[in-house]
């Protein structure tokens, strides 16, 4: 269970305070929508540890994450772009998931198979399409297998067919690996397609719809 307990955050020089209070079970997906600047991505930054909340707690299976540095949190985060190092091959991008220098080629091949990119190991990241890049980033998430997955508008830069494929892929992976998944999205179809709970950010408060 991932619990976001009474989190409050306000940016310097801004009067608005953002408030978040909810929980989700393993294998559950939450989609958060709202207008630009409503504070959706701010929540992901707080959970990932890039921003420090003014108050509140983040608890995963009764373990407090609130005071951990971003690199020590059991979290994978994906943005709409900049998820890969474009000057590296797919294999080397995936190898970053391992803490040791040894590249486990077998595991990489399985992860790539899971995201539908068999044989892409030696391809340069920069030569991939937007959808393929997101799949590689998801494959790295698979290799890391952290219990929390945060997706910040991950389907924005993709065409309709790719979005559909990616939704299906995310849905299946979350179900299989039991990740606690939070997705920030502008697209109202995402929640329905992913069988997710729908939340909205309005006037600085996150509410279930």
């Amino acid at each position, binding site marked *: 269970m991932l619990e976001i307990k009474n989190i409050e955050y306000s940016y310097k020089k801004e009067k608005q305070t953002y408030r978040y209070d909810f929980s989700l079970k393993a294998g559950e997906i939450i989609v958060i929508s709202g207008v630009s600047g409503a504070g959706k991505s701010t929540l992901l930054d707080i959970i990932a540890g890039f921003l420090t909340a003014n108050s509140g707690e983040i608890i995963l299976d009764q373990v407090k994450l609130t005071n951990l540095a*971003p*690199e020590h949190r059991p979290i994978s985060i994906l943005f709409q772009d*900049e998820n890969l190092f474009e000057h590296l091959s797919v294999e080397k991008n995936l190898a970053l998931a391992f*803490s040791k220098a040894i590249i486990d080629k077998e595991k990489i091949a399985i992860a790539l198979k899971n995201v539908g990119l068999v044989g892409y190991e030696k391809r340069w990241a920069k030569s991939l399409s937007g959808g393929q890049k997101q799949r590689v980033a998801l494959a790295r998430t698979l290799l890391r297998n952290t219990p929390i997955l945060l997706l910040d508008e991950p389907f924005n830069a993709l065409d309709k067919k790719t979005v559909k494929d990616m939704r299906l892929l995310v849905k299946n992976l979350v179900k299989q690996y039991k990740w606690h998944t939070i997705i920030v999205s502008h697209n109202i179809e995402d929640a329905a397609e992913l069988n997710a709970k729908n939340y909205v950010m309005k006037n600085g408060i996150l509410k279930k719809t």
Partner: protein
Amino acid sequence: MLLGRGILASEKRKIIMLIIALSISALMVFLFFSIINVGNIFVSNMATIKIDILQLILMSLMQASLSTILSLGAGIAIAWSLNRLDFFGKNLVVSLFATAIVAPSMVVAFGLISVWGRAGWIAQLFEFFNWEWQFSIFGLGGILFAHTILNGAFAAHILLARIDAIPARKLKTAQSLALTPFKRFILLDWAAISGALPALGSIIFLLAFTSFPIVLMLGGGVANQTLEVAIYSAVRLSFDLDLAVRLSIIQLVLCMVIILPAIISNSYLANAGVNYHYKWRQKGLAQFAQISILFVAILAFALPLLAILVDGIAGGILDTLSRPSFWQASLTSIIIGSLSAVLTLFLAVLIATGRAAFSNGILKAILGLPIFAYLVIPAVVLSLGFYLFVKNIGISPTKAAPFVLIIANSLLALPFSIAILAPAIETINQRYNKLTRSLNLSSLMRWRMVEYPLIGREIGIVLALAFCFSLGDLGIISLFGTSEFNTLPYAMYQSLGTYRNNDAAVIAAFMLILCLVVFWFLPMIFRKLSNARN
């Protein structure tokens, strides 16, 4: 019809820009042939040359190679440390390193002597503890030290901008992957800076290869002489024009060969332009290394500047200030610097807007020719070209001197000025070109309403940079200066030559203060002025 006027204005503008770019290039070619022409006349005298040219070339190349390696190493380390650390006064430190590009190198060399020389601060400190001070600031070590301090700070400023421009999302991805400091450097920082290294390396190599005041003041004799200093010595000291011409041609050819990799690699120095809003600090050994590097860098760069100010104030300031010759040299420097700055801005805006407006690669390249002029033709060679040119057409070099100084100093500042203006003007052109043309804005209106308000700060930087370049020039004035017509650097050099070190200290301090004030305040004033208009 309305659109037609806009296009006409735009086409007229392009033609004027092309003519100016071609005129500058033609002037350069003309000066080059003035030198070659004289060189051919003296070809038969080859046997009479008493200088070991091969040794000179090898010395120049070795000194420049070592300077480049050390400067790039120092620049990368300083940029890395500055990017990671956050502390009170960081902006001041970044600004301090930015002044490396405008601080007159002869002033910095003077400051280094004050700190590291035999009677310098460090030597006095050693004496206090009864220790023996054996380090000599003169010779190859001193030249490398000065070049590393100046060019390392310059490199740090350029590279920091690129590291700071790494997108926040990429940083967050790397941090959530728990990359080690080394992996972070290789995957993020190196990827960001490596593209700029060929161009930056070439520029630093050329700056070191053509370095004049530092080698002149710290070289410590013929053994460490570079081509640039040898040309000056041939003209001014041994009056051997034949040798000067021959050395100039060698210098030109070598500079062209050196600048080629930068042009071919197509690397660029402009900021990547992405705003950086996320900081990822590091702790432990990495942080200790960053603090240590920055401490040493600040000490190495700021101490000579501080020494100049202290020596200047302590060195009989009133006596020097009471001399009319000091004020005459100051007035000459300020007038020439101001006019040179205005001319530089005019040329840089025209060339940068022209390059942004042209889509044709060849025309773009023609407009880019003046950018490489200085990089290929160093100050002393340019000065010699002008010197021979005015002599050939029967004008006294003394009479032509003010005009030559304004034009030559402006040409020297041009590549750096265009590098500052071009990215901003390119962006404006991409965003507003269609809109301004559909609104049928005239060239003047477009400049007043669109371009000027958006590039106010850059205009200020260009004016400050060109002014400071001109103020610190010793290369051009070295051939044109006389007792009647001299500038501050020339007066300082003459003072040093006649062992009037106190006078030199006051002049150095005055030049440094003038440069810092202009470099810090002009961009600020212009940004405020353009914002007011905006």
